[in-house]
Every structure is written in C-alpha cells, then in structure tokens.
C-alpha cells in the first residue's frame, strides 16, 4: 500500500506538472483493495485491471521502475512505451493489462480462467472494475459465462461511490451483491478501506475458486481521495459535497494498517519505499525514448508489414 501511495503521489505531481503527458487516474485511497486481493494470488494467477490500474499492477508485482518508465513512454517501460498508464501490463506476472474501456477486462479474465481450466492449470483470474462497470453489458455477460461454467474467476468491484461524477446511487439500480448473487455466484460486500478485511475475503474467494466453487464476486466499499483523473484537478471540477473526502480520509487504509504495525516496521517500510520510488523516478527520467521510426513496431505479432500513412 505504501508503494502504491508513494508511487501515485509522485505520478500525480508529475501529471500536474506536465511531465507525464497523458495524466493519470489516481488510485489513492483505494490501495487496500488491490493489495488485499493480490496478496492472495500466486504469480501465475491472472488479473485484468482498469483505467485506474496502477495499484493493481503494482500489487501484482510489477517492477515500479519499469512501470514508471512506461508512464514516461520509454523503451524500458513494461510495454516499451506503447501502453502507458491505461494499458500497463506484465504478462509474465499474469498482468493482462490495465484497460481503458470500462468493464472490458471482465470477459478477458473469464477467458483466461477458462483457458487455465482447459489446460489443466490451477489458476485463478481476478477482474478488477469500478461500480460504473456494473452497468456495462459485457460485464454481465462475463458473470453469466463464469457462473454457468463455474470458472475460477473473482470479480472485484471497487465501489468508490462514483463513476466519474455520477454517484453510484444515480447510476446503479439495485444492489451490486444481490445482482451478482442473481447469477448464482457467491457474493460479498466488504470494507474496502481495511486491507486485512479485503485479504480475508479474497483468500476465501481464491481458495473457493481453486476448489472449483467459483466464480466469486467481491464488492469492496472504498473511496478515491482525488478526482477521477488528474485533469479534473487541473480544471478545478468538483462534485463531492462538504467534508465527504475528509470523512473518508479519516479511514485512510494506510493509517489503519500503520496503527496495527510496530513503529520500527512502519519506519523501515517507509524508508524502503521512499528509496524505491526515488530510484524509479531516476530510472524513468534517464531511460531512452523510443525511436519514432519504430512507432508501428509490435502492431502485429505475425509477418504483416503495415504500409505507412504517406507514400512519396
């Protein structure tokens, strides 16, 4: 959690200063969800993530140096500078990519779980998405397929109360858990600000998936402390009333966990993370930009050569 927080705070500054061109969708405030869930996964387990994906990708084990280099758009980045914030992926760690389309990862994770079963591998797939994604048809289609075939998928809905500016109560009919339960999945709602609560629920879900009792649905009630996107701060939009943010900040998942740990552990984690993030920033800043002549590299895995846009 400390790594995600520190990493994101640095990214946020860099986005506001224009150093990171595309800006970011900050995950700050929601760290307990990514960490609680990913702490229960093995390396070969698969995750699909969202536009707000930094937390998931880091929690699944991505190298913060290469992750920041990716946000910088350099060749040392996880995706060699081709993906950036919204597509960060490390397939060797089962990270099938953050995804810029709301809900798009749910059927992809379901497919990974199905493939694992076909290949006889004991893998679990986790799909993270926001409350807004519950209104996407493709997510419900994924629920149906996963439940129909009892696939080892954990659907993790991070209910942070808003889909951009739309409060969940004005976007979602009914209740997320009951909606998921309607597909025949085991579904729980947990306090997404408490990493231990999330980890406990995730452990039960992952274990159930490994025993063939999947899929599971986990609603994590959480909150983002910043705006939807760094751009929002730059243009000064606000749609949250009064002291709502402050009330949630009182339940900061990092503080909650810090208070449970011995002071010396906290201090050493803080120091270690500060150094890690400094290193990442230095690494990203010094890693090379791709050659513009290579802009179409990786477009195809096979032997197709795309023609250029201008032929002289």
């Amino acid at each position, binding site marked *: 959690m400390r790594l995600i927080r520190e990493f994101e705070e640095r990214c946020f500054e860099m986005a506001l200063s224009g150093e990171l061109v595309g800006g970011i969708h900050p995950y700050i405030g929601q760290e307990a969800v990514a960490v609680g869930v990913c702490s229960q996964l093995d390396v070969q387990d698969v995750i699909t993530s969202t536009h707000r994906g930094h937390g998931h990708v880091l929690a699944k084990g991505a190298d913060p140096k290469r992750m920041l280099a990716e946000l910088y758009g350099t060749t040392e980045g996880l*995706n*060699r500078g081709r993906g950036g914030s919204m597509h960060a992926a490390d397939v060797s760690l089962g990270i*099938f990519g953050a*995804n810029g389309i709301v809900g798009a990862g749910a*059927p992809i994770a379901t497919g990974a779980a199905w493939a694992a079963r076909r290949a006889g591998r004991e893998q679990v797939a986790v799909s993270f998405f926001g409350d807004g994604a519950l209104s996407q048809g493709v997510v419900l289609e994924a629920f149906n397929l996963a439940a129909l075939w009892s696939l080892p998928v954990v659907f993790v809905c991070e209910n942070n109360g808003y889909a951009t500016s739309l409060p969940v109560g004005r976007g979602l009919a009914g209740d997320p858990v009951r909606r998921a339960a309607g597909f025949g999945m085991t579904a729980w709602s947990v306090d997404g600000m408490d990493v231990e609560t999330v980890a406990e629920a995730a452990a039960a879900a992952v274990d159930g998936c490994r025993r063939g009792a999947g899929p599971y649905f986990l609603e994590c009630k959480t909150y983002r402390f910043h705006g939807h996107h760094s751009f929002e701060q730059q243009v000064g939009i606000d749609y949250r009333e009064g002291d709502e943010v402050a009330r949630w900040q009182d339940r900061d998942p990092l503080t909650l966990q810090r208070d449970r740990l011995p002071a010396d552990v906290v201090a050493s984690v803080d120091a270690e993370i500060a150094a890690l993030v400094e290193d990442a920033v230095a690494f990203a800043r010094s890693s090379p930009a791709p050659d513009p002549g290579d802009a179409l590299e*990786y477009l195809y895995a096979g032997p197709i050569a*795309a023609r250029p846009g201008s032929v002289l």
Partner: protein
Amino acid sequence: MAPLAYITALHQALRDEMARDERVCVLGEDVRLGLTGITQGLAQAYGPERVVDMPLSEQGFTSLATGAAMAGQRPVVEFQIPSLLYLVFEQIANQAHKFSLMTGGQVSVPVTYLVPGSGSRSGMAGQHSDHPYSLFAHVGSRPWCRRRRRTPTGCWCPRCATPDPVAVFAPTMLMGTAEEVTGELGPVPLGSARVHREGTDVTVVAVGHLVPTALQVAAELAGEVSIEVVDPRTVYPVDWATLGESVAKTGRLVVMDDSNRMCGLGGEILATAAEEYALVAPPKRVSRPDGAVIPYALALDHALLPSAAQLTEAVRAVLK
C-alpha cells in the same frame, strides 16, 4: 478428384486444425449442432469442451476468446450472422487487435473470427445482409474473404497465417457451391493474390464471391477485350505486388468489391493505383452504394449489389 463443396472445405480445414492442435477450440452459437454446417460432427469428434455452445452473449464470448488466447488457447469464434460483428467491434477492433502493440509485443491474440454466410442472402433484408470486411481492413484486423476451396486452411489457421486475430468472411453466395479442386489443399500465404485468368487489356480485381462474376464477364467479353482477373484473397494485407504487376501490364483497372462504396476496399485499391501505378485511363469500381442498407424485396436487394452488367459497363468505360 470429385467436386469439393465450399462448406466442406471450411469444415475440413477446421477439423484438420483441431486434430493437429489441441489448443484449437470452437466457440459460438449452436456450434455443437453445427447449424451453419461448418462445425457439424466436430463436437462428437472432439468433445463439448472444444466445441462449445455459447449463450447469446457475443460481446462476452468474443472477449472471452481474447483472454483465452492470451492464456495460450487458439479459439475459433463463429458468428451466426455478419452484423454481429458490429456488436463485437469493440472487442475485436479495440481489444484483440490492439493488445500486441499496446503491450509492446508481450502478447498476441490468435483468435479466428469465422463469419459463414457473410453478405446478402436472399430476402434477409437490412440486418442480415452486410459483408463488412472493409471495416475490418480499415482497422487493420486482417479480414480474409475466401473464395477458393483449394485454400481452406490458410484462412484461419494460426500456424499457416499469422498469430494475430483474423476474420474469415465466407460469402453466402459461395456456401452452397462446389468445385473441382486441382492441386494440393493447402494454406494461402498471407497477402498472396491469385491471378485466375490472364489478360492484357484490363485488370479486374474481384473479391470473394465476385470472382466467378468477373470470370464470367471476362469470358463473355473475350472477343472484345482481354481481361486479367485477380483475386486478392486476403483483403488485409493486400498483395500489392501482384496487383501492381497486373496493372503494369494492362494499364487499366476495375475493382469489383461487395463493400459499400464510401471507404470500401475498392476505394483503397483505386487510391493506391492512382498513387503508385502507371494507369493509362481513369480506374473504376463496382460496389454497393454508399452506406447501403439492403432492402427485403429481391429485386431491390439485387439492385444494390455489384453485378455482371455493371462490371461489363465499367470495363468498357476504362477502355474508352
């Protein structure tokens, strides 16, 4: 060799590939029964785990195939009607197609989208008569528009073609046909056109089920004009070298393409020819009208499809 039915060739290609590669599986609606004919008997041969009947959730199972492919499978997704591709455009154009580049080459998505019964079939009206391969060429998603059964496997099999997603459009008008097959049944190399008939005066580029029409017109006009008929076979990538050689010989070009005219494949071939080839006359294309919606009544349906009469007229026009 006895005549081989087009549909049998599609079926046999799929069957062979399933036998060869355990990772190949078929996902689609009514595929166990084999409603479209292509997958008939495959569930009995390979089991329901590999020939999987899907609920009616095209977006869900199209991206399920993407995830499965990223995790090592080689799914073939069959769509019952071509317009379902509009429903899954996000999942193909914006997800499957983009993963290779977006991840910096970490993954590819070797899924085959099989579209049997593409294009107009009699009396199926507005929502069942489209033939949207140009749309997929536009986004770079490698559509094949198959015509000849001497080349069944190459169209969809990752081994022969490409590890990337591929859409195979099998035109309705060919589904019920059969033809003598000569030579080896083998894969079509990616982006390799076939010259069906040699000629010296006009190059006619015809796609899919329009190849027989072009050959018919070429035969009818044989005393008057010598037509070379070229079938690109894969509509993305296009075999520009073969097209260029043909036009270098004839200097004249007509494209016959069952796409809508605006931004269709025909337009692209004409544009490339204008940029790069030494044409001696303005080229022509025969296509559906801009943004066509195919009407129900048969006479109206046929009125909007590229026809032999239009091709004849276009050939005469480029000769002027």
